[in-house]
């Protein structure tokens, strides 16, 4: 149990996928203009990432390792993620129209979100057990959502700020992200203490 809590805290705050591994930067820079859409995107990513690490774990350990096909890892993972996104989209549309209206437009974008594939690959290199992978996937998604929402809030305010002309748009967003990464470095003492 202690291990799982450690994985949770360190993945959400310390080794945040966005701010220390640079995964999922594209939606982070592109989508995060409004808080509502950041929440929608974060929820969709958390959902798919949890499924991707658990199902990815099953396929990796029960099929690829067993039949000595590890070199197919990347091809299989990306196919799993793409089909997961498809299935989740169809499933949500069928069973919950409100949820589909909220998450629908973000789902197709997730296939090319490197955070999902990144989480699946980290789960393999870190040799997590099945339960640990599930916790890792969920907390990875949660960490992504938190940063995305913070960033959306900052950018809402930023639109009223007087920014030097050449820094408008991407440059100022990147610099804000850098400051955010500095702030999150403050959490790094949390676990060893």
């Amino acid at each position, binding site marked *: 149990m202690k291990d799982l809590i450690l994985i949770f805290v360190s993945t959400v705050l310390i080794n945040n996928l966005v*701010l*220390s*591994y*640079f*995964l*999922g*930067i*594209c939606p982070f*820079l*592109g989508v995060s203009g409004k808080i509502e859409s950041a929440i929608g995107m974060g929820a969709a990513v958390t959902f798919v990432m949890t499924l991707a690490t658990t199902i990815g774990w099953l396929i990796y350990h029960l099929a690829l390792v067993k039949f000595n096909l590890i*070199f*197919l*890892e*990347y*091809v299989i993972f*990306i*196919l799993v993620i*793409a089909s997961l996104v498809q299935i989740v989209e169809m499933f949500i549309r069928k069973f919950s129209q409100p949820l589909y209206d909220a998450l629908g437009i973000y789902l197709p974008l997730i*296939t*090319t*979100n*490197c955070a999902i*594939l*990144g989480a699946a*690959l*980290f789960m393999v*290199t870190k040799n997590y057990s099945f339960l640990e992978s599930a916790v890792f996937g969920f907390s990875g998604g949660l960490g992504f959502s938190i940063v995305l929402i913070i960033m959306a809030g900052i950018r809402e305010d930023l639109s009223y700020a007087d920014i*030097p*002309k*050449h*820094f408008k748009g*991407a*440059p*100022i*967003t*990147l*610099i804000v*992200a*850098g*400051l955010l*990464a*500095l702030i999150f*470095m403050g959490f790094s003492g949390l676990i060893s203490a």
Partner: protein
Amino acid sequence: MKDFLKGLWGQHPVFRQLLGMCPTLAVTTSALNGISMGLAVIFVLFFSSLVVSLIKKIVPNQVRIAVYTVIIATFVTIVDIFFKANFPQISRALGPYIPLIVVNCIILGRCEAFASRCSVAKSLLDALGMGLGFTWGVFLLGSIREVLGMGTILGFQIMPQGYNHLIIMILPAGAFIVLGLLIALMNRIEER
């Protein structure tokens, strides 16, 4: 020729289109890592564009993204195995960012926006231009961070002895800030 040159400056993948941000920020802790990543991207981009533009007529429209992704993943696997066998040190330094080329939006973006519509020769020129553009981008970013953060470039000491290393430059926060400043600089140059 225009297809080749636009990737180097006018439609630079990193500074103009903001594509492929994850590897750009993650592996540029040193100039050497930057170049290695750039070469890996050129290889994958070149061959994926080649295959995509060759088979563009026979791929049904609905499944094209899935097909492109599988093609890209195949070439990425080749690069990954090649690095692991011949340059284990670089492979360790780049870590999961080699496999993450699969979801690098530069490659899927060029395959979808260019190679699936244009002739083979044009697609190859476009791929080379974009790949080289990406490479000089990550090399520049890697050099700046390496010089300021460690006082070296490609491993050679260039800063004077007493230079106080700006450790922040090789940490994640430095990557964001340097890239932000570089894009602002590009905007300034472009405006003139």
